[in-house]
Structure formats: C-alpha cells, structure tokens
C-alpha cells in the first residue's frame, strides 16, 4: 500500500465501506494508512506456524430461545420523526 497506487487504493477501499472521501481525506489517508499498515507488518516477526486462530475469547455456540410469541413494539420502532408515512418508512430507490 505505497507509492502512486495508494491514493487509488484508498478510494477503492472507501467505496467498499460506502464512503465518498473528499480530496483532502484521500490525501491524508493515503499517507496515514500506509504508515499504519507498516505498523501492522510487525506481525511478520511473530512465530505463528501451526497456531490456530482465536476468533472469539469464549467458545461461542448457537443459543436458542423457546419459540414463544412476544409482543412486538411496532409503534415504538416506527417512531422515526419525518421518515414514517402510516406504517411505512421512506427509503431511497433501490
């Protein structure tokens, strides 16, 4: 993530997380992100051959609840000022 590629790469990465950066942000991030990635490269020194990754601090397993109907707080959830018409929420075109 260095040299002339970095600015284009920053723009591409931003689009992946649905962000439109200003020119100033693009310039700033292309410098800063390269430095931060260099810092991440410190992990190259870690000896991890044969080590299993830990995705979670606990042994995570599926948790199920009993299949019982509970009241749905529809009115509360639709309390979005300026965005609700009747029982519908305004949203942009798909």
């Amino acid at each position, binding site marked *: *993530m260095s040299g002339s590629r970095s600015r284009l790469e*920053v723009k591409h*990465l*931003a689009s*992946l*997380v*649905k*962000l*439109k*950066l200003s020119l100033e*942000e693009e310039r*700033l*991030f292309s410098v*800063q*992100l390269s*430095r*931060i*990635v260099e*810092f*991440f490269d*410190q*992990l190259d*020194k*870690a000896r*991890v051959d044969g*080590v*299993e*990754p*830990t*995705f*979670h*601090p*606990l042994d*995570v397993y*599926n*948790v199920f*609840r009993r299949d019982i109907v509970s009241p749905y*707080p529809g009115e*509360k*959830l639709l*309390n*979005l*000022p*300026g*965005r609700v018409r009747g029982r519908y*929420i*305004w*949203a*942009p*075109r*798909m």
Partner: protein
Amino acid sequence: MRETYTLKLIREIESGSLPLDEYLARKAEAIAKLEPLLNSFITIVKGFENYEAGKLGLLRGLTVAIKDNICVEGVETTCGSLILKGYRPSYDATVVERIKGNSGVITGKTNMDEFAMGSTTEWSAFGPTRNPWDPSRVPGGSSGGSAAAVASGESELALGSDTGGSIRCPASFCGVVGLKPTYGLVSRYGLIAYANSLEQIGPIARDVYGCALLLTVIAGYDPRDSTSIDRSSTDYRATLIDGLEGFRIGVIRELLGEGVDRRIRSSIRESIYKLESLGAVVEEISMPSIEFALPAYYIIAMAEASSNLARYDGVRYGMNLPVRDHDWSRYCEEVRSRGFGLEVKRRMILGAYVLSAGYYDRYYIKALKVRTLIKREFTDAFKTFDALIGPSMPILPFKIGEKVEDPLELYMCDMDTVPVNLAGLPAISIPCGLADGLPIGLQIIGSYFREDLILRVAYNLEATLDLRLKPVFSEVCL
C-alpha cells in the same frame, strides 16, 4: 468493612442523615456548575433530581452516568457521532434495566470518542471532554466523559465500555477506579457494537467499593446476549476482604518496558513494595507475545468495526437526508460520508483492507493467531499467580490536541491495556500516585471470572496507599 467514600454516602442516605432529595439537588448543582468547563455529558436527563425513592435497591438512589453508546429508552443515544444524532432507543440496555431496578438515578449520557474509537475523547462529534485535574489535558478515552463525571463528582458512579482499554485509560487519567469485566460476565444487549469479540461494559467509581457495588448490580446472565455466560451471581462487595497473605502477584515485564514514563515506573515500584507489605509475594514474569498485542488488536478491532458499522444507512435511525433525488447506494454514501468522523472512516477503511482478498490471511488471520499466543501466555501465568500487575497507561494525561494529528502515536497509548481484551480477561485500574499533579493508574489483571481477586487486591492497595485524591475541578471545590 472499611468505610470508603461510597459506603459512607450510602449509609448516610440509608440512615436519613443525608436526605435523598438534598443529595440529588447537590448533584444537579454540581453538573450545572462544572459542565460548561468539563463537557462530560452529551445529554443530561432533565429532572433527574426529582427522582422519588421507591423500593430501595442496592444503589439507594446514587447517581449513575451512562456512556452514550449504551441505550436508555427515550433518551438520545448518539455514540458521540453525528450519524446517530436524534436517535432515541425504544428500549433499555440490560445494564440500564438493572440499574433502574436497583434505584440508581440516571443523570445523563456521557461524552465519548465517536463509536468508542479513541483514547482521548477528542474524537467526539460534540467537542472534547476536559480532565478535571487540568482542563487543558485530555481525560483519556473512549469513556472519558464517564471518568471525568465521576472524578469531578458530577456523578457518583458511571458505566463505560472497554474494547481496548476504554474504561481503564480514562480511569487512570482522571484518578478514579474502573473495571473491565471478564468477557461474558456483563450483558452487551443494548451496547452499540464497535468490536463485538473484544468489548465489555464495566463500572467506574471513586473507590473500589463503588466499583464492586455497581458490578454486583450489572453482572449476570442475560438470554438476550448470546455471549452472556450463565453463572451463579456474586455479591462483589463481600469479596472486599482485608489482607493479602499468601497472594502471589506477577509483574508483567513487557508492560513496564520501553515507552513507559519513568515517573509511572517509579510509582508502580512503590505499589509493589506496598503489596509486599500486605503479605503478597510479588515476582516478575515475562510474556513475550505481548510485543505483538497492539498491531493484532488494531487489526481485529478495525475488521470488526468495518463490519459492524455497515448498518448505518441513514434510513432506520439517526441522521437522514431527503431521499427523492438519490438511489440507495448514493444515498448511503452521502449519509455515511457526512455522518462519520475522521477516525471512524480511517478504521473502517483499514478494516476493509485487512479483510480483503490477499490480505485476509496476512493480517486478519495472523492477528487471530497472535491472539491465541497471548491467551495461552495468560493462562499459563495464572497457573502460578492470583493476579498480574502493570501500569494502566504508559504516559501521563497529555494536552488536548497534542497527539490528534498522528493516529499511530495515539494507538501506542493503548499498549498496556489491549492484551487483556484480546484474551477476554478482567482488569481493574486504580489510582496509585500522582506525578506533577496528575494521576497515575495501576492495572491489576485477573484470571477468567476472578473479579473477586482483583477487587480484593485493589481494595487492600487502596487502603494502604490512602491517596485521598481531589481533582482541581470537582464538586467539593465549588
């Protein structure tokens, strides 16, 4: 039991020598006077001082400030971000339900770095919080508002959340006590997610007793959080027992290495002598994988953040724009680009980078393997030791604006706190001294679900040090 500040207050309220309405009026006055200077709160709950005590639970009407990434029904919850401005949750977080059910009086929502991404509270969209010890300095972060509110007396107790040190760092910088619980001890239902596998909600208080009290209230199984652990409940107040005879305490060499201020090293050494005088056996221990904890932590946290923050589309909650002229994709981009601040954008982009094809194994999976090594080293250490210690922060509170231009320098501040989050362990920060009028924090780390042991070590050390800290700006100085 030793009569600490919080215990004395509770006894006064119980006995009626301090009427609850008088106490609450005093708190409202402290907030009114201190808030223009400190900016600890984003939202203050109107009329909290008019609370009428019903069935008195464990908290007896003590005030509790809630970090602004924890949902309180009907009270604006912004996470320190413009993108959630105006969002009023339709439900209480489980921890908030428990506080209300125990007669805690919620004073407001405290300031924080946007989405808890920061160590100074400077990344809040609502302006920085100032340190009550020196308002030109940062209070630490990301739960800086909570720590400043407790240190100044604006609130008796507070909740913070700790993803990589966000309770312990501001507790250290503000001279208060903050505890990050074992992963799974406290429900995260109603906590707005930043990095799910790392974060926990925890208490901040002026003394160890206050921390034990609030932990007793909020800890416990919650079926609404799939990572909550079903264990029998503990009254952590009962674990505050005098004496440390037979305790074995390890000092982690790597936490006191390069980059730690000499005044902090010296203060930690003083605490070690005190622990020995209390009957504990203190020995040094080396944990070499800690060297890689900081890059591993940031890779994992940023990866989880980029995924978690995908939900903010400007439709369902918070910031919205007129929708007529946009298609879905452009609308989302527009809202997100206006609503998120610089640090959040930086972390989401880096998260996308470490998760992308070609870099996933090199960064993300490798970081998770380092996490395994760190977890193993802690597990091995706890076969010998009851608790491990080191500094909470490597440096003293610095000036507002001093490091904000250099994100990497700010990330380095977390070097002593992140190993605990990677392993999912409990840790507490307590004040252990002052240098140039600024507080220093000592970190005590425990094995899984051994909050009882670290609270006991902290309680005894607190008594022996007897610091009686009073910040420059606090309710007693009004």
